[in-house]
């Protein structure tokens, strides 16, 4: 049943929000001991919230389009009074004094938040193994990672613990775990969804987006959370796009570029899935052209300078003074050092140092400046491509889900799993991963659709066609 259908049964009184919430909580209770998708389950709060929705229905009020639908939030989204830790020791136990804008919007739509999901610490990682609270396992094969950094949000939906979740995507952190877990994941246009209350990693790249089991469910959730917010100075000054109304409009007349640079270095079964996806779009009337955008290959290097540079600045705020943990020491600087050294994990330290180095005197132009100019180069290359095609199609990830521990000691190998997702973040463009096939090992393969800024309606139309033609 779709989430809108589920909400309709609650709004009509056919089912109660309490029953639906209890069922989600029971599923978490049953499966999460082995998967560890959640870092905090909000049992009492979720049930109280469900009761308030049932009471609203009983009064004849309309609790919203997603009334009573259970949803999980990535642990970097602020909820007033609820633990928000970014899966980091340094924020362990922190209870924000305000709600993220997306949380406010979810409440207005009637959603029931059931808990916070596991993630790579401060969203830095591609496997959820960098969580200070232990890794999440892939529901399709528990010996594999779920991807990351939003691995808990992807796993929670893939394991049917919740029908919806939110993640954040800075270099692929929604799309990559969506692909590895076999669910739909969307990274919206930069600025479409407010970042107010999203704990900052790399502010010019971060964007909140949905996970769902179907394209239609993801569309509803994105409509709910999108739209201008005066609390985010980078919020686009416009209303949420209309996506659901156009889901069945098809791809007739669209030109889709099969991007060879988003296939290079990918496993043969992934390349084959993407080519079959192109055939599905062609069969429904899209014109398919092969297109090379060689500049995209420079995205990885640019990203792994720009994102750490922004992170090194954003994470300077964790100084043991205003929130989070403190390790006491004799003077302020010693306290700052002791707190940060004990509070941050290795990957966060690596990125902070990398970013500090890229911004330091003598290296600023060579690293940070060069990366910013390369970012422009990539945006211009995308712009030329979108002069010829309406959308691009490629792989989301080079491989299916890898084994836990396989890349944890080799940061560069881990970073390479983001090679196909990073360019859209650098350009601020939307992109989504749609489950499309299975690999030889039975693990899901996602294909990625990319579009220019504000092209979500087109992306979702094409995603619907791919979903209908998927072989997974």
């Amino acid at each position, binding site marked *: 049943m779709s989430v809108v259908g589920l909400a309709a049964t609650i709004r009509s009184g056919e089912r109660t929000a309490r029953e639906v919430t209890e069922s989600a909580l029971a599923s978490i209770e049953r499966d999460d001991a082995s998967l560890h998708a959640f870092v905090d389950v909000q049992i009492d709060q979720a049930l109280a919230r469900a009761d308030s929705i049932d009471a609203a229905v009983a009064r004849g009020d309309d609790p919203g389009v997603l009334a009573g639908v259970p949803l999980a939030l990535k642990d970097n989204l602020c909820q007033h009074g609820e633990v928000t830790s970014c899966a980091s020791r340094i924020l362990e136990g*922190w*209870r*924000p*004094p*305000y709600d993220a804008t997306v949380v406010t919007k979810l409440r207005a739509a009637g959603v029931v938040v059931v808990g916070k999901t596991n993630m790579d610490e401060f969203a830095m990682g591609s496997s959820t193994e960098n969580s200070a609270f232990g890794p999440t396992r892939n529901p399709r094969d528990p010996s594999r990672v779920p991807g990351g950094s939003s691995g808990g949000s992807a796993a929670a939906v893939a394991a049917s613990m919740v029908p919806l979740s939110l993640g954040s995507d800075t270099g692929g952190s929604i799309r990559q775990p969506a692909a590895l877990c076999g669910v739909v994941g969307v990274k919206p246009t*930069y*600025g479409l969804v407010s970042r107010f209350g999203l704990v900052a990693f790399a502010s*010019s790249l971060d964007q909140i987006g949905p996970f769902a089991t179907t394209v239609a469910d993801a569309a509803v959730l994105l409509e709910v959370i999108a739209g201008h917010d005066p609390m985010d*100075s*980078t919020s*686009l000054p416009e209303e949420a796009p209309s996506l659901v109304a156009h889901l069945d409009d098809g791809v007739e007349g669209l030109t889709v570029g099969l991007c060879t640079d988003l296939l290079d270095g990918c496993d043969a079964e992934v390349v084959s899935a993407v080519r079959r996806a192109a055939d599905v779009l062609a069969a429904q009337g899209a014109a398919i052209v092969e297109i090379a955008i060689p500049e995209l290959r*420079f995205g990885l*290097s*640019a990203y*792994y300078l720009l994102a750490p540079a922004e992170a*090194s600045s954003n994470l300077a705020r964790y100084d043991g*003074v*205003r*929130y989070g*943990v*403190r390790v*006491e020491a*004799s*003077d*302020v600087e*010693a*306290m*700052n*050092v*002791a707190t*940060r*050294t004990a509070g*941050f994990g290795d990957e966060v*330290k*690596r990125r*902070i140092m*990398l970013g*500090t*180095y890229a911004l*330091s005197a003598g290296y600023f132009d*060579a*690293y940070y*400046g*060069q*990366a*910013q*100019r*390369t*970012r*422009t*180069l990539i*945006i*211009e290359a995308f712009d030329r491509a979108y002069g010829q095609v309406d959308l691009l199609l490629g792989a989301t990830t080079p491989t299916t889900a890898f084994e836990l521990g396989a890349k944890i000691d080799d*940061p*560069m190998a881990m*970073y390479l799993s983001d090679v196909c997702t990073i360019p859209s973040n*650098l350009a*601020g*463009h939307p992109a989504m991963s749609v489950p499309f096939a299975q690999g030889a090992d039975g693990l899901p393969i996602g294909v990625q659709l990319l579009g220019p*800024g504000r092209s979500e309606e087109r992306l979702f139309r094409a995603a619907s066609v791919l979903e209908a033609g998927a072989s997974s």
Partner: protein
Amino acid sequence: MAELEPISADEVRHVARLARLALTDDEVERFTEQLGSILGHAADIAALDVASIPPTAHPFGLVNVLRDDVVTASLDRDEVLSQAPKVIEERFGVPRIASEAP
């Protein structure tokens, strides 16, 4: 773009100090190698001639977003302070910064 020297252990110690992180000797060795590998990958963009291309800091170039100058509610002081590691007289408490006057 000139060939960049690999990051040295001393430079890792220097950036760790700037970033307020303490590293053991083993960590210095490990991070020097790992950061070297990541920065080595950036040789591909170091080789690009992009001097004539302007830098991008924000994908859509929004600037100077201002709101009307009206008073709105701010965060509750007691609630904010309830999350601080140490509070002294309704303020954030930190170790002494200046020494006693002579």
